[in-house]
C-alpha cells in the first residue's frame, strides 16, 4: 500500500469525505459508460452475432475496447476472420494486465475478493480508484465503478442487441460509421504525447496499406507490431518510467470502457 501512505492527512472526517467523493465519481462514470453499451449491443448484432453471443461478450469478456474490436473484425471478415478477432481482442486486453498489477495492492488479500476484482478490472475502475487519495476511497472507488459498470453495461448491451435486431440493414442507419467513431473516441484520450500520436498514425497507415493484400482482421494485428517496436526502443519517448504509463484520469475524463 505504498501509494496510499503518501497521503499525510488520514483523519476520520477527511477520510469520510474522500470516500463519499469516490462513490460519487464511481457512480457518475458508471452511468456515462453504461449508456454506450447500447451502441455495442447494436453493433454486435449488426456484425452477425446473435443476442446471446452479444450478451456473453459483455458478461464474460467485459472490457469494452476488446469487445468492440472483436465485433468490428467479425463484421468485416465474418467467421473466417475469427482468429484475427480473437487475437485483436486479446491484444487490446493486454493493458488490463498493467491495471491488475497496479490494483493488486489496493484490493488486498483473499482469494475470492481478488478473483472478483480481476473481472471488474477495466479502464474506468482503475482510473477512478487511482484518482482517490485515501486507502478506503481507493478501494470503494474501484468496487463502485467496477460493479456499477458491470450491471449497467450488461443491461444496455441487451437493450442495444434487441434494438439492433429490429433495425435491419446496419448501413442504412450508419452503424458502420458509428463503429469507426467509437474506436476513434476510445483512442482520443490516449493521444496526449508525441509517441502515442506517431504510433497511432503509423498503425493506421500500416493497416490501410495492408488491407488489399491480407484477409480482413490481419492488417490490424500486423499494425500492432508498430507499438511493440516503438515501445521496445522507446523511440520518441521520454526518459522517465512514469511518463510512459497512461495518466490516471484518462478514463475518468473521457469515459471509455
Amino acid at each position, binding site marked *: 500500500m505504498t501509494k496510499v501512505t503518501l497521503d499525510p492527512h488520514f483523519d476520520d472526517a477527511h477520510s469520510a469525505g474522500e470516500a463519499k467523493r469516490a462513490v460519487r465519481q464511481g457512480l457518475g462514470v458508471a452511468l*456515462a459508460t453504461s449508456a*454506450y453499451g*447500447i*451502441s455495442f449491443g447494436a453493433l454486435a448484432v449488426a456484425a452477425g*452475432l446473435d443476442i446471446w453471443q452479444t450478451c456473453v461478450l459483455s458478461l*464474460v*469478456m467485459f*472490457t469494452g*475496447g*476488446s469487445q468492440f*474490436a472483436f465485433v*468490428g473484425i467479425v463484421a*468485416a471478415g465474418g467467421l473466417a476472420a475469427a482468429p484475427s478477432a*480473437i487475437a*485483436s481482442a*486479446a*491484444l487490446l486486453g*493486454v493493458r*488490463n494486465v*498493467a491495471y*491488475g498489477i497496479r*490494483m*493488486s495492492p489496493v484490493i488486498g488479500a483473499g482469494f475470492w475478493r481478488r478473483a472478483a*476484482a480481476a*473481472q471488474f*478490472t477495466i479502464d474506468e475502475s482503475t482510473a477512478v480508484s487511482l484518482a482517490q487519495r485515501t486507502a478506503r476511497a481507493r478501494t470503494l472507488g474501484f468496487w463502485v465503478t467496477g460493479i456499477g459498470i458491470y450491471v449497467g453495461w450488461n443491461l444496455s448491451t441487451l437493450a442495444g442487441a434487441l434494438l439492433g435486431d429490429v433495425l435491419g440493414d446496419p*448501413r*442504412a*442507419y*450508419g452503424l*458502420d*460509421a*458509428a463503429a*469507426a*467513431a467509437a474506436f*476513434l*473516441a*476510445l483512442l482520443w484520450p*490516449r493521444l496526449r504525447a508525441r509517441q*502515442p500520436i506517431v*504510433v*497511432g498514425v503509423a498503425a*493506421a497507415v*500500416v*493497416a*490501410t496499406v495492408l*488491407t*488489399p*493484400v491480407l484477409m*480482413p482482421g490481419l492488417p*490490424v494485428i500486423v*499494425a500492432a507490431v508498430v*507499438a*511493440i517496436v*516503438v*515501445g*521496445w526502443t522507446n523511440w520518441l519517448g521520454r526518459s522517465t*518510467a512514469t511518463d*510512459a*504509463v497512461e495518466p490516471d484520469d484518462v478514463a475518468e475524463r473521457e469515459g471509455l470502457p
Partner: protein
Amino acid sequence: MTMWTAVLVAAIVCVGLKTVGYLIPARWVEAPTPLRIADLLTVALLAALVAVQTLAVGQAVVVDARVPAVLVAAGLLLLRAPFLVVVVAAALVAAMLRLWGWAA
C-alpha cells in the same frame, strides 16, 4: 470454428489477462518497457481499427459516407463531446448522406 467457439475463446483469454495482473510479482511494476508496450499496443490497435472500419470493405479500400462521418466525430471529440454524442452523430451523418444519395 463456430461463432460460439470464437466468442468463448476470446472472452476467456480476456478474463485470463485480467487475472494475470493479480498474479504477477509487484516488483514488475518497476519495469517501464512492458507497461509502455501495453499502453502503445492499445493505441496502435485502436488506430488501426479506426482506419479499417472507416476505409475497408472486405479487402477493398473505399471512400464512402463513413469518411465524412468520422471527420464529424473527430471534430466533436476536439470539442470534448461525450462518447455517446460522438457515436450517434457519426451514425446520423452517414445515414443522412446515404438517404439523400450524396455518398455510398
